[in-house]
């Protein structure tokens, strides 16, 4: 908001319980009272939902210009007005009696099962019954009862007799998530939250309803009956599942994470998060978790080893060798910094790349030239935008909080959204987005044709690297129109890794490797004589080099071979190289590694992620007594064992170093635009493949979350109506998508997609595009009836 806009807001002074308070026009009385520290009890009121005035708990006496309302008013629905005098329960006996009367009625039909209710101890009904209710009830008849509980999805349970019918959950689903899958049914005291008979509450955001339920009516299947709130130790944390950057709270009991909640951050996630962030944390305690270092013995078998043995074995295998570093997008900013420093000092190489996915040289240049070190696009820019262009970006699936922010702006002010994509989507429908439909590979030309203004925002997904010239087209459009351009990767650690210099052409802070001043800068800070000056290899080039014997060894952290193209080849070349793997759990890489060093998961360590804005999301260890250590601590020990210290004993040491390095104000890596590519010509049964990852899929960090998995979207292959006709199938029939590598057979969904294209989920059960087809986007496949 600019200063000018701030001054334009009219301020109104009202008197509440004898105290004056000045608030912006439009502020609700209940909110104005909060500013004075006066808590008016409430249930249906929620600051981020539209007022409804249903529970009647917040009744207060109101007088305007000396004229009193004849009856108490719901303070959650009345905005302040000049010359308003409000008397809450603290000063008005009428308001006090009204509130106590409503509370008595709310409790009348509420079961006395607080001792076994998950909400007991953190329950607004319990708390406010104590603060604003009568000690005894006069209602001695029959209470309303229901069969309990009922599943409204595999992860949300409903105890109807506990419900106070505040409609927070239904309003959230309707207003915030645009997933109106739950609604109030029936009437009177038998009114109840319900779903359509055969349509469960499979919203990606359903967990928020559990969190905002003011009673124990909605509970999460994974947490139900697991703990009492007062036995939990809560730690502010950040979400590791995507680049949205949600503020979170992690609740731990006896060293075990039992639940995670959305934290409050008005600038980022407001008070919401997605179900993956909330309910995918058991991977930390999954059965294949690594706890001891492993070393491959003379017989070629991985055996448990002590830390000194393992570190010595790793150091022996790396020292003096031509080695590279692959670090995925899952590590924290500090850990990425550790890998970056380790590569340069201990291995003496710039062969490091955080992009454990399909990537391109165009992308590498773009990240170094246009993204690293720049922090100029934020969620607030979406709030101010006249038009948002989505490029190779499916917000609900790939960065759900960005979707919620887009949706908020669409709902509140009709924000115009345009998406250049191969396939329509649920999110596009919700946002009523203009859908510029292209064949996979033709995106660049379509982007060039969009007209934007200086108030527009372009949100560029990481999949832009999969379409030749698309990034260049987006850069050109931003330059031409003055629109802001933001790059939104999918994984939480990518942006932090970029800033840490985990890229072959970059040192920390966006400093170009090729710039001698930048190298001197960093070398001085690190206390070394010099840094390697040759730009390094990218992920794909590192794999190539390992295969060509140009490299002998590789340090791999947080990367799964199945994240990469040619995963079989990746594993093959790694088998013949010396591999040191830093991992939290067994993976395809640990199984072929020579030394495996177990590391701490997010809940066991402190650190930070940089979200897509570049905003630091710092967190402390939620599990205080974990024996596992952060990657950088282990890298530091390994560097010591190799005789070239990187001195990163703690996360805070790394954070301090990063802060001291400061900003780079020298020249940046230049960006050379790449000419627009085009889709290959498809004829007959050929189609051009397109795919992206769903929010809930086979991601390794969703391991062990069966309840969550139950709300996944169906795995389908999407084709256009005309292709359906030519293939001879309709929705529900099976099709086979194949190429020379392999095939995938899926039920078909006939939908809005380019006629030349076929879409499949990239990493869902029964549809793993990379491993099955070694293709993800823009490649020809054959689609036939199965």
């Amino acid at each position, binding site marked *: 908001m600019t200063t000018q806009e701030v001054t334009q807001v009219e301020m109104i002074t009202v008197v509440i319980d004898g105290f004056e308070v000045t608030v912006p026009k439009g502020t609700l009385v209940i909110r104005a009272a909060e500013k004075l520290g006066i808590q008016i009890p409430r249930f249906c009121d929620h600051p981020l939902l539209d007022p409804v005035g249903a529970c*009647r708990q917040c009744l207060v006496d109101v007088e305007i210009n000396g004229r009193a309302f004849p*009856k108490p008013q719901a303070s959650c629905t009345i905005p302040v007005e000049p010359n308003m005098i409000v008397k809450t329960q603290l000063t008005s006996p009428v308001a006090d009696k009204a509130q106590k*009367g409503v509370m008595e009625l709310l409790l009348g039909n509420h079961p006395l099962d607080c001792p076994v209710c998950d909400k007991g101890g953190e329950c607004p009904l319990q708390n406010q019954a104590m603060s604003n209710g009568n000690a005894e009830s006069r209602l001695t008849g029959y209470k309303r009862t229901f069969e309990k509980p009922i599943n409204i999805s595999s992860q949300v349970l409903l105890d109807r007799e506990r419900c106070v019918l505040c409609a927070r959950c239904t309003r959230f689903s309707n207003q915030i998530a645009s997933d109106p899958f739950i609604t109030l049914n029936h*009437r*009177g005291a038998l009114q109840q939250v319900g779903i359509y008979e055969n349509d469960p509450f499979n919203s990606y955001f359903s967990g928020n309803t559990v969190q905002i339920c003011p009673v124990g009516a909605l509970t999460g299947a994974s947490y139900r009956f697991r703990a009492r709130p007062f036995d939990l130790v809560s730690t502010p944390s950040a979400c590791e599942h995507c680049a949205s950057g949600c503020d979170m709270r992690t609740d731990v009991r006896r060293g075990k994470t039992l639940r995670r909640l959305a934290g409050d951050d008005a600038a980022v996630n407001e008070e919401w998060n997605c179900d993956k962030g909330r309910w995918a944390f058991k991977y930390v305690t999954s059965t294949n978790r690594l706890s001891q270092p492993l070393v491959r013995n003379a017989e070629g078998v991985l055996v448990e080893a002590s830390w000194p043995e393992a570190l010595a074995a790793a150091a022996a295998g790396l020292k003096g060798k031509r080695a590279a570093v692959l670090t995925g997008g899952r590590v924290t900013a500090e850990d990425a910094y550790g890998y970056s420093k380790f590569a340069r000092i201990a291995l003496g190489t710039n062969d490091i790349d955080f992009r454990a996915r399909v990537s391109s040289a165009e992308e590498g240049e773009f990240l170094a030239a246009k993204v690293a070190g720049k922090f100029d696009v934020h969620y607030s820019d979406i709030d101010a935008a006249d038009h948002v262009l989505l490029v190779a970006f499916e917000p609900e699936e790939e960065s759900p909080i960005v979707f919620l922010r887009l949706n908020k702006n669409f709902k509140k002010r009709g924000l115009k959204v345009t998406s250049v994509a191969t396939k329509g989507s649920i999110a596009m429908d919700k946002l009523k987005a203009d859908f510029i439909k292209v064949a996979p590979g033709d995106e660049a030309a379509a982007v060039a044709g969009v007209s934007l203004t200086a108030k527009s925002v372009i949100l560029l997904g990481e999949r832009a690297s999969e379409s030749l010239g698309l990034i260049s087209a987006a850069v050109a459009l931003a330059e031409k129109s003055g629109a802001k351009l933001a790059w939104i990767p999918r994984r939480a650690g990518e942006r932090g890794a970029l800033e840490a210099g985990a890229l072959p052409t970059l040192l920390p802070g966006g400093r170009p490797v090729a710039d001698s001043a930048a190298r001197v800068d960093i070398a001085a800070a690190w206390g070394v004589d010099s840094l390697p000056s040759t730009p390094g290899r990218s992920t794909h080039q590192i794999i190539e080099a390992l295969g060509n014997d140009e490299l002998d060894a590789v340090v791999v952290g947080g990367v799964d071979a199945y994240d990469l193209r040619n995963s079989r080849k990746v594993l093959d070349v790694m088998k013949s190289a010396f591999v040191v793997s830093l991992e939290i759990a067994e993976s395809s890489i640990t199984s072929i590694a020579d030394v495996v060093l177990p590391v701490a998961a997010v809940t066991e360590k402190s650190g930070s992620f940089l979200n897509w804005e570049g905003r630091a999301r710092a967190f402390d260890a939620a599990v205080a007594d974990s024996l596992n250590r952060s990657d950088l601590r282990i890298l530091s020990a390994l560097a010591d064992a190799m005789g070239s210290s990187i001195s990163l004993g703690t996360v805070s040491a790394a954070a301090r170093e990063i802060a001291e390095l400061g900003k780079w104000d020298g020249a940046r890596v230049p960006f050379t635009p790449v000419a627009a590519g085009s889709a290959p010509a498809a004829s007959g049964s050929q189609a051009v493949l397109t795919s992206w990852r769903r929010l809930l899929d086979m991601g390794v960090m969703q391991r062990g979350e069966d309840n969550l998995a139950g709300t996944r979207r169906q795995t389908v292959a999407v084709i256009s109506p005309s292709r359906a006709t030519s293939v001879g199938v309709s929705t529900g029939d099976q099709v086979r998508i194949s190429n020379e590598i392999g095939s995938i057979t899926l039920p078909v969904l006939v939908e809005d997609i380019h006629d030349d294209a076929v879409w499949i989920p990239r990493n869902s059960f029964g549809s793993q595009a990379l491993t099955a087809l070694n293709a993800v986007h823009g490649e020809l496949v054959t689609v036939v009836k199965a």
Partner: protein
Amino acid sequence: MSKLTPVLSAHWDEKDSFTIDAYKRNGGYAAAPKALAMDPDAVIQLVKDSGLRGRGGAGFPTGMKWGFIPQGDNKEHYLVVNADESEPGTCKDMPLLMANPHVLVEGVIIAAYAIRAKNAFIYIRGEVTHVARRLNKAIADAYKAGYLGKNVFGTGHDIDLVLHIGAGAYICGEETALLDSLEGFRGQPRLRPPFPAIAGLYARPTVVNNVESISAVPAIVNNGPEWYQSMGTEKSKGATLYSLSGHVNNPGQFEAPLGITLREILELAGGVRNGHQLKFWTPGGSSTPLFTAEHLDVPLDYEGVSAAGSMLGTKALQIFDETTCVVRAVLRWTEFYKHESCGKCTPCREGTWWLVQILRDLEAGKGTEADLQKLLDLCDNILGRSFCALGDGATSSITSSIKLFRDEYIAHVTGGGCPFDPAKSTLFAEAK
């Protein structure tokens, strides 16, 4: 001299009164062309001048309501007629539509024209199939005659009228719940503001009027506001339908000027059933506080009834003689409110649940005197605390009956049950 002033009901006794031919024979469809020749604002002024007030219960001046619709806003405007007559005792709109549906259709044409609405809706309760059929036929006939549709009466104006049949919910008589229901949602009252005049049906400026209010308009146009003004009392102008039911010899609808008394209407209706005396009555349906024989001379206009502590409401005069147990009657009404509570707000939803249980105990002789205080206190926590007037209405008969007949409640407590023989209050009791 008869006190009756039949206008709406003037021809109900004609066998074909509901047909378009009968309506025209009796002067129908003359007002609409007359109104359509006037400036719309002049029509609004005419209705304002007549002093017509809403007949749905609240008595809000009809012309003023029309005047609230913003003009020149380039938005669709809608007229919605509330025919969801559901209150126990209220039986004026259904007989009117049964016998004379065209007067409503003509009223709709005039009202829609006045507020610049091209689309009008009648929301009728779902149970009255026969009335809905007659109304449907009337609308179809009006379309056929060129009174509805494109270029009505050849004036170049378009007015479409849709009959919407509700699913049977008392709450849908509340105007904002009606609008939600009409839009296809569950009928629950909306938060106001915005009022329907600003954002009503489909968030467009909307007038919601009762059947009788709209039906009064053609006669006002025909006879002029002065004629209408000449009937009624100082602030309650015109004539209206009083519906008499219960223990009376000749129940039915009596169209009379506002301000008539129950004593006068009872005379017209042949009195309370023979051999019995008036015990209590409702002036405006089950949600208005009870009256007794003391109130026989209260002028039945908005101000008179209000001054005597009740509400004119829908002018549904339910008459109960001394054979009736007031506890039983109040319990039945309260059961109705519990059944019809929409569930949106706590006081009405939860309050009616408990009121019924306490009243049941009292009627069965299982209550205590303390229960009366509990009832009154619960009513105090519901009245004026609920989201809409349905909750308020649920308390009226309870509080007024305890005030008027406290001894009778106590008799249930001390006597361990109801002292009345319910059979005696039935109409077939005398026949035995």
